[in-house]
Every structure is written in C-alpha cells, then in structure tokens.
C-alpha cells in the first residue's frame, strides 16, 4: 500500500475542503472495501479523509413513511436496529448477511454505496425499495444513483450523509452468496411499496444493480412465486467468472426472485 496523508475532519465542510485540497483524495468510512483495494494498489490515493469524526452521520430514525439511516451506520447497526427490524425487516436481514461479523462491525452503508461494488447487497435494497441517497448538497433517487460497476452519480467531492428508505408493505431479499466472500453471486430484492412492485438484482451483472421490468409487471398483476418461477432471464451481459458463468447466474436470478417473493409472505 502506498503511503498517504490522513485527515480526520470533524465537519462536512472540513471534509470537503480536505478532498478539494488533495491531488488525489478519497474518503474512508469503515474501510472494508477501500483498504483491501489499496493493499492491491488498485487505488493509491494521495490523501485519505476519514468521516469517522464528522458529526451527524450516524443514527437511524423512523420518519413514519420512511426510515432514514445515517451514512456512517455500520451493517451491524442496521441489522440490529429495532427501528429497521420493525419497519423494514428485509433491510435488517439483508444487512445481517453482508460479509462476516467483523466486516459488519466496521463497514458502513454510506461506504458501500459510494463504492458500488457490482456484487454488494445494498444497491439491490436501495433500488427495490426506491431509496433516496442524501448527500451534503442534494438528494439522488436510487434509479439515478447507480451508474455501472464502481460508478455512481456522486461528484468527486460529494459526501453521502444518509439514505432514506420508504417503508414497503412487504419486501424480502434472497441471495446466493459466494461461500468465501459472502458477496452476491446473484441477489434479488423484491419490494411492494409506494412505487409499486420493484425487483432489483445485484451480483449478476458487470454493470451492477439492475431492475427486472418483466418480473415487476408480472408481480404487479399477481403477487406470488408462481408469477416469476417460470420466467427465463437472458444471460446476455451477465458476469462469467470462477464463481458462476452467465447462464448459471441467469438461472439463479429467477430462483432468487422466486425465493424472495416467497419470503415476502
């Protein structure tokens, strides 16, 4: 890992200033994605700006129609939150399935979303639930936020402060996990919420999270596992790697969608 200058600001303004003043700066939240890629020299920032000391990025609040999760909330905090468990149990269960206990103790929702790993779980939850990504300067709908593998709508010096999830009437996430990393080989979140039925898939495509319009339409007509059970998914554009080839992933998307619908009850 190359060395860098470390910054520990206590306000968003100072964090933005540190990023703007750096030749090649990056933010660090929990570091569970950033540090591994820095060890591989896939990222070599000149400056690392920590958000750990910035006030106002933690906490989970029940807003009635929605639940707002602070960007620095760890996966363990989301999984263990009585508010999330009570209002959006699918989100708590999803967070409880990320990585392992120690990764969940350190990794954050904001960090995961800023990184946008194509096999991460949160993108599927955000898109299916119709979440809004709140930053230091604007609000971005999930459909506009994710822009391909490791690509997001964030500007270089923009900082996620919170994520707002509309409360669905029912939702569930089913993941076929890589047994070593627990990343999704294919993961499907199904949500029946204010924006109708939404089905979001992660892990399967090199372009990151995507929606299954055909499944959404079928479930909108008749919400049940049989609506998606026989629905074939094209393997075009899906990932092929040592974990699974594209045809197998296409098959998994249907199976995970079916399981998620069943888990909606």
């Amino acid at each position, binding site marked *: *890992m*190359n*060395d*860098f*200058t*470390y910054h*520990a600001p206590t306000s968003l303004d100072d964090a933005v200033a540190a990023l703007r003043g750096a030749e090649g700066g990056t933010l*660090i939240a929990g*570091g*569970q994605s950033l*540090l*591994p890629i*820095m*060890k591989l020299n896939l990222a070599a920032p000149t400056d*690392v700006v*920590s958000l*750990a000391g910035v006030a106002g990025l933690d906490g989970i609040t029940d807003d009635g129609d929605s639940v707002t999760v602070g960007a620095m909330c760890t996966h*363990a905090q989301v999984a263990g939150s009585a508010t999330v468990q009570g209002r959006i149990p699918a989100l708590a269960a999803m967070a409880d399935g990320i*990585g*392992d*206990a*120690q*990764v969940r*103790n*350190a990794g954050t929702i904001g960090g995961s979303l800023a990184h946008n790993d194509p096999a991460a779980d949160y993108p599927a939850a955000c898109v299916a639930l119709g979440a809004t990504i709140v930053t230091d300067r604007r609000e971005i709908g999930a459909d506009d936020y994710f822009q391909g593998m490791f690509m997001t709508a964030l500007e270089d010096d923009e900082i996620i402060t919170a994520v707002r999830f509309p409360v669905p009437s029912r939702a569930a996430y089913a993941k076929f996990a890589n047994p*070593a*990393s*627990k990343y999704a080989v294919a993961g499907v979140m199904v949500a029946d919420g204010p924006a109708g039925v939404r089905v979001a898939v992660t892990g399967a495509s090199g372009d990151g999270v995507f929606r299954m319009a055909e499944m959404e339409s079928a479930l909108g007509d008749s919400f049940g596992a049989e609506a998606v059970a026989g629905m074939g998914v094209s393997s075009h554009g899906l990932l092929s790697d040592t974990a699974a080839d594209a045809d197998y992933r296409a098959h998994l998307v249907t199976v995970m969608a079916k399981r998620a619908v069943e888990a909606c009850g």
Partner: protein
Amino acid sequence: MPTVTMTVNGMERSGTVEGRTLLVDFLREHLGLTGTHVGCDTSQCGACVVHVNGTSVKSCTCLAVQADGADVTTIEGLANGADLHPMQEAFREHHGLQCGFCTPGMVMSAVDLANRDSDPSEHDVREWLEGNLCRCTGYHNIVKAVQAGARAMGGGS
C-alpha cells in the same frame, strides 16, 4: 508522520506511524503484542481480530490512525495474570485448537459474541464464526468451546 495514542489492554500507548500503517502492524511491530496474528492480510481469515471500542474488528483492515483515541483489547488483554479468561479456559477445556494460529482471533471474536448473547446456539456460533478460519481441527470443538465460554462468562467479559 502521524502520532497515534490509544488505550491498549488498559494502558495508554503512543507511537509514530505512517498513514498506511495497519492497526495489526502497530500492535505487533510497534508495541510487541504478537499474540494478534496476520494470516491472510485480506480480511478473510480472522486471525487478526481484536476489539476496538468493545466490538470485534479485523485489525489487518483497519488503519492505526483510524484507531487513534480508541480503546483496544488484544488477546494479551484477556487473562488476569495466570488466570485465563473464561473463553480461553473453555478453548483449553474443549480442545478448541490444534496449531493455535487462528486461536487469538477465534477467542476475540467469540468474546464479542458472548458479550451479545450469553447462551448462543450452535447455529449462532457457526454463523458468527463465518469470518474466522481454522485449517486444523475443523470447527466442532471450537463451537463447543465458544458455547461453554459464553455460558461461563454469563453475559459479561
């Protein structure tokens, strides 16, 4: 270069590090606390698990500067003199180790679980140990040890 100060096993410790210095390297190389092991260095094996502010983290995937000001507990901080911590005693009693390389991380991870759940089921233990790899014994006796250790702790470390 940054200076970090943290409480390690109840004692205030300081050191000058590089930004890129990992917490595990600060513990091992700067403080000589070599009980915390480096196995994979890719945050998968869990040999490096320590507690930072009371929760278990992988110290190979944490910068020393991130732990500045924190309260850190390593495997060396568990025993009270010659008296083993109940979780360590349980690992000995139930033969929860063979070569011992993974054991410090296993024990630190297990203590975090026991602090949350004083009577975890076998399923709970196996799920919790997802991020701790043992390549000798398999997990059978480790799981028994963690359950016994948690009960012996009685909900507190």
